[in-house]
């Protein structure tokens, strides 16, 4: 699967709900904010047969640059090849490899769930436990939002599924390396070459 464009992540992850599958790795890619840069990254992945698990794109505080957070599936290719090939793109400035273990990660989930009078109370209870938000209220439905780690999003989805999920949209994760407090490895940044 190569997900590009609107950063959609499948509702349930392959191989169970753990998104910490060993083969997934997060790359935080600083790119020049030029027309077509997303297409270049996406085309590189598809042309070389690398699988993108999720992709999130946003401008940075410096308007010349954007940051892509790409979750790659290392079953398709070794991480080293992927980062080296990415580096060959002229618009790629810096790549930070973030091992999920050493990352702070967040993802946004929007979910429309069936909520009639009998189930609404239970759903709101879960909303409270997870620190989610109710964005919209209909007669028979609720639209919920949760921003948290991908794992928490998985858990939340699993629990509200029983009430009847009508629509789910996830943003794909964004991540930064954990701050170094002496022991942690943090992210490994690779400078440019060729």
């Amino acid at each position, binding site marked *: 699967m190569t997900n590009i464009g609107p950063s959609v992540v499948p509702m349930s992850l392959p191989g169970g709900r753990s998104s910490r599958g060993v083969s997934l790795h997060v790359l935080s890619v600083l790119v020049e904010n030029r*027309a077509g840069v997303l297409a270049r990254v996406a085309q590189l992945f598809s042309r070389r047969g690398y699988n993108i698990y999720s992709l999130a794109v946003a401008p940075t505080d410096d308007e010349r640059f954007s940051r892509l957070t790409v979750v790659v599936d290392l079953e398709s290719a070794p991480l080293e090849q992927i980062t080296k090939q990415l580096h060959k793109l002229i618009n790629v400035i810096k790549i930070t490899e973030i091992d999920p273990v050493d990352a702070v990660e967040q993802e946004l989930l929007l979910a429309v769930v069936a909520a009639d009078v009998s189930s609404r109370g239970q759903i709101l209870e879960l909303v409270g436990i997870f620190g989610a938000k109710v964005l919209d209220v209909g007669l028979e439905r609720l639209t919920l939002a949760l921003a948290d780690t991908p794992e928490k999003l998985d858990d939340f989805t699993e629990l509200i599924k029983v009430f009847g999920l009508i629509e789910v949209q996830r943003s794909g994760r964004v991540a930064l390396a954990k701050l170094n407090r002496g022991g942690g490895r943090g992210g490994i940044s690779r400078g440019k070459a060729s």
Partner: protein
Amino acid sequence: MKLTGAQALIKSLEMQGVEVIFGLPGGAILPVYDPIIDSPIRHILVRHEQGAGHMAEGYAQVTNRPGVAMVTSGPAATNIVTPLANAYMDSTPMVVITGQVATSSIGTDAFQEADTTGITMSITKHNWLITDAAEIPEVVAEAFHVATNGRPGPVLIDVPKDVSNQMMDWYWPDAVDLPGFKPTTKGHPRSIQAAARMIKEARRPVLYVGGGVIRAGASGALLALAEKTGIPVVTTLMARGAFPDSHPLCLGMPGMHGNYSAVTAMQKSDLLVTLGARFDDRVTGKLSGFAPEAKVIHVDIDPAELSKIRHADIPIVGDVRSVIEDLIEALDKGEAGEMVQADLTPWISRIREWQKLYPLSYDRDGTGNGLKPQYVIETLSSLTPEGSILASGVGQHQMWASQYWRFDHPNAWVNSGGLGTMGYAVPASIGAKVGRPDKMVWAVDGDGCFQMTAQELVTASAERIPVKIALLNNAYLGMVRQWQEMFYDQRYSEVYLSPDLPDYVKWAEAMGCVALRVEAPEEVAPAIEKANDINDRPVVIEFRIDSSEKVYPMVPAGASNDEIVLGPSYGGAR
């Protein structure tokens, strides 16, 4: 100074020192063709845009300077896709300029609109769609910088028609600013030290030399390294001429149709000193069986090549010339300098034995149905002045050319290696002759290839570019025929072309060439001598060759290099 975008574009090319553009005009690029009239840059009008691209490549392959091609939008841009892909595979520096529909029409399926930057994204190092004429000088400077620095390759600049007509204030940038493009050129000293030690310890080392050595202008450094260490050299298809064939340490070409001794030396080696080469499948054969005992030192300007196919024990990112020079120094000084190099005498004598037992050979007095192609190329090589340039198409004739031409100089072999593009020879030889008018330029071509791009001989006649074509007519798509003969039970499917349809002599004459047909062995040398004396127009010699002749040695596809087949001249093997 106010200029139109078109004027700024041509002026930017002049600033880059461009001396020739290969191209063909059309609607979207029309404004840019007007200032060409007033420019000192020579424009060569091709007959097909593929020809423009291959000419630019041929020019670059012999000069090590970027070739420039210019074409219009839509179908012209798609016609030049093949040369871009070819140049990308063979790391040939090339700048292609395409016209584009006006910015306001982009995305509307306007007449002759194609998504050129989208189509060429994966076959260029980078491409640019210009949206404001003010960007032109900066983008041109960046484009040449990217094409020629780091691993060389093609780039493309797409110029919408309204941008060409837009007025801008002329400037020329002092420097390019590409924060995401900073190639490493200097090898890491510690890795170089480690490599020097590994070289001194090796008992069966081979210098595995690829096209990167030619692109980096590293032939002189390579010669010094080989002579200093006494390590034998193999030159891949892309590297023919990077090290002289006449040198006693040269083992020739490795790979699917390589010399027995080159292939086998790599197989038995304990150290492959890999210089600007990339472990192409045509070199390695079945990867799991390739050089099983060899450690690998891998030097390349492109970090992504290191350990891509074969694990590198010592990866070194850098310009191969600079790294070789540092390596030579490290062999003399420091820790490695104190070590005594292992004795290579037993290794060299083993190789000499293979060379004696299994040289390249063919059946010289064979009673086939035509000339022996190997004989034609040997004769061509011996009658043509030292330092001449040879271009080639793709197929059997290419392999015979690589095997039987004597390569003694870099940048004198113009061929399509990575992509294997039929039809490369005629336009590439024209570009080569434009780049090196002082050299004699021959192309060895197949009848199949010739029919793909021969029309560029009209360009050559019109522009008085006296290239010489040795057409090896075997009436077949010979390389495919060879595979059908060997691996498909001689079931020949769609490979027959006919020896006399078209009539190559008449066709060449119609294109303004001198044309000769040679059918007997004793006519070969006189015809070549006659062609060598013609300097005012292109010459085509059609050699009627034996259609049953095959290329040997051969490592069958998917087999290990240990399973090399020597061929019938060694007594009936297949």
